[in-house]
């Protein structure tokens, strides 16, 4: 059970870490200063969540690895984040499309994890769920404004969303281990969350005068370490210092 829990915590922590890292790329480059501050706030929340989930993962593993060791000294195939969060930022519409889908998912997930049978998970979720409710609302606001803004922004939002639809199954993917944790009341049953998330997504898309297309062929594998080409590049950048300087102190 400990290894299952460890794997599950990696999934939770890696999602937040990788998306936080992506959002860091926006810092100093957003459409306005106000939007820059908003994106930084999202990233700070996500990095905080990653620190908590990965810290707990290290404790559960009890092999002497802390959150930093897990974040900076694993290779791409050992990461358990979903494919969606590792996708490049693209333009602001694509970033907001990705944020909207991920935060809507994460909100439903954390909401459920607030009553996890694992006290530590419940505690982290209770803190994070408030952050993520804001992320989901903020991203929804932008989906609506860009989707129903100008012809250009609408085109970009449609394209941004189109980039994401192929990763939905991956987002909700569960293996037997996670199902066992869900049966024990520790993890959330993602299959049960999916209609909820879908309903919310459709509601916001309607407000944005957009519609949800039929899903294309689904790409999966993030939860088992089979990632897109983007992750190892992201990690090469993120991990360069600790990897290049063993024994250093930061």
């Amino acid at each position, binding site marked *: 059970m400990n290894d299952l829990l460890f794997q599950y915590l990696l999934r939770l922590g890696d999602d937040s*870490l990788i998306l936080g*890292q992506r959002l*860091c*790329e926006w*810092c*100093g*480059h*957003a*459409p*306005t*200063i*106000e*939007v*820059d*501050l908003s994106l*930084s*706030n999202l*990233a*700070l929340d996500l*990095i*905080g969540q*990653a*620190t908590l989930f*990965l810290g707990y993962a290290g404790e559960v593993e009890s092999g002497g690895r802390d*959150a*930093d060791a897990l*974040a*900076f000294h694993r290779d791409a195939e050992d990461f358990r984040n979903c494919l969606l969060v590792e996708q490049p930022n693209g*333009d*602001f*519409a694509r970033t907001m499309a990705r944020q909207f889908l991920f935060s809507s998912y994460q909100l439903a997930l954390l909401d459920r994890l607030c009553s996890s049978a694992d006290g530590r998970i419940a505690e982290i979720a209770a803190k994070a769920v408030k952050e993520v409710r804001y992320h989901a609302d903020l991203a929804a606001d932008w989906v*609506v*404004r*860009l989707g*129903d*803004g*100008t012809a*250009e*922004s609408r085109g*970009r939002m449609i394209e941004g969303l189109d980039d994401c639809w192929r990763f939905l199954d991956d987002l909700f993917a569960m293996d037997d281990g996670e199902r066992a944790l869900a049966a024990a009341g520790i993890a959330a049953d993602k299959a049960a969350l999916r209609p909820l998330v879908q309903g919310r997504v459709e509601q916001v898309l309607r407000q944005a005068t957009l519609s949800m297309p039929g899903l294309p062929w689904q790409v999966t594998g993030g939860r088992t370490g089979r990632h897109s080409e983007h992750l190892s590049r992201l990690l090469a*950048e*993120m991990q*360069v*210092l*600790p990897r290049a*300087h063993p*024994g*250093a*102190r*930061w």
Partner: protein
Amino acid sequence: MYTTELDKTAGSAAAPAAVEDPALLAAFEARVANDEFIEPKDWMPEAYRRTLTRQISQHAHSEIVGMLPEGNWLTRAPSLKRKAILLAKIQDEGGHGLYLYCAAETLGTSREQMIEALHAGKAKYSTIFNYPTLNWADIGAIGWLVDGAAIMNQVPLQRTSYGPYARAMVRVCKEESFHQRQGYDLLLEMMKGTPEQRAMVQDAMNRWWWPSLMMFGPPDDNSPNSAQSIRWRIKRETNDELRQKFVDATVPQAELLGITVPDPDLQWNEERGHYDFGAIDWNEFYAVVRGEGPVARERMKARRAAWDEGAWVREAAAAWEARQAARRAAAA
């Protein structure tokens, strides 16, 4: 970050002095001399408005451009804690830019005009941000030296004569208080690490020391606007006074870190009660002011790209709201 008197031509010497009503002018000077605050709708001489707009907008530009050199290492921060600290720190600088643009706007220039002036190369920003960040210790050096110098400049401005500027500076100074500490803390930690890390810290010091001293602006004898700015309380201490204060405060901190200040002429002067220090390369300073700093082009390119690529976002949100407003009006 603060910037001081970079753009001489726009100052009092070149621009023709507007003919101001002597009675109003005298009343204004008396209020300022009396340490009263001037507020946006109060009468003020054109030269005051112009000088302040230039100074506050330069200050705002510096905050925003200053996000770039540190942002360069954000995605490579070596621990989760350092990543969060650095992001929060850079975010603060963005906030400072925002407060300052808002303060400058109360003088009648829009944010867009100010940003366009920056992008057209007509407005200046602090020379320090035209230097590259080459290793992780640069992030510590920026916090310690650059923010340290900025704080020294900014603290007196909390009592500057223009109300919105003073209030923005109060907020800025409150937020700045962790910036210098996190930088010094970062360097302390690296000095406890490997020999390579200690070499990185020294290397960062070697590259950032002189540009930091230049941040206080040209020497007083070559700073023609100083007297008027000090009379108007737009500036409260001279460039050289602040620079000396900075050197005096920083040298012992360098010793505590265990690194060398890259100045063979640096020496404690018992008689003056201050450190004497070597000559600053003012040719380099003026070259960087002219926009010839090592990465000036990259900085401006990045700012222009962010602004230009954000245009469709700003337009889309405005268009959406215009439609909502029309709908609300029709329903009313």
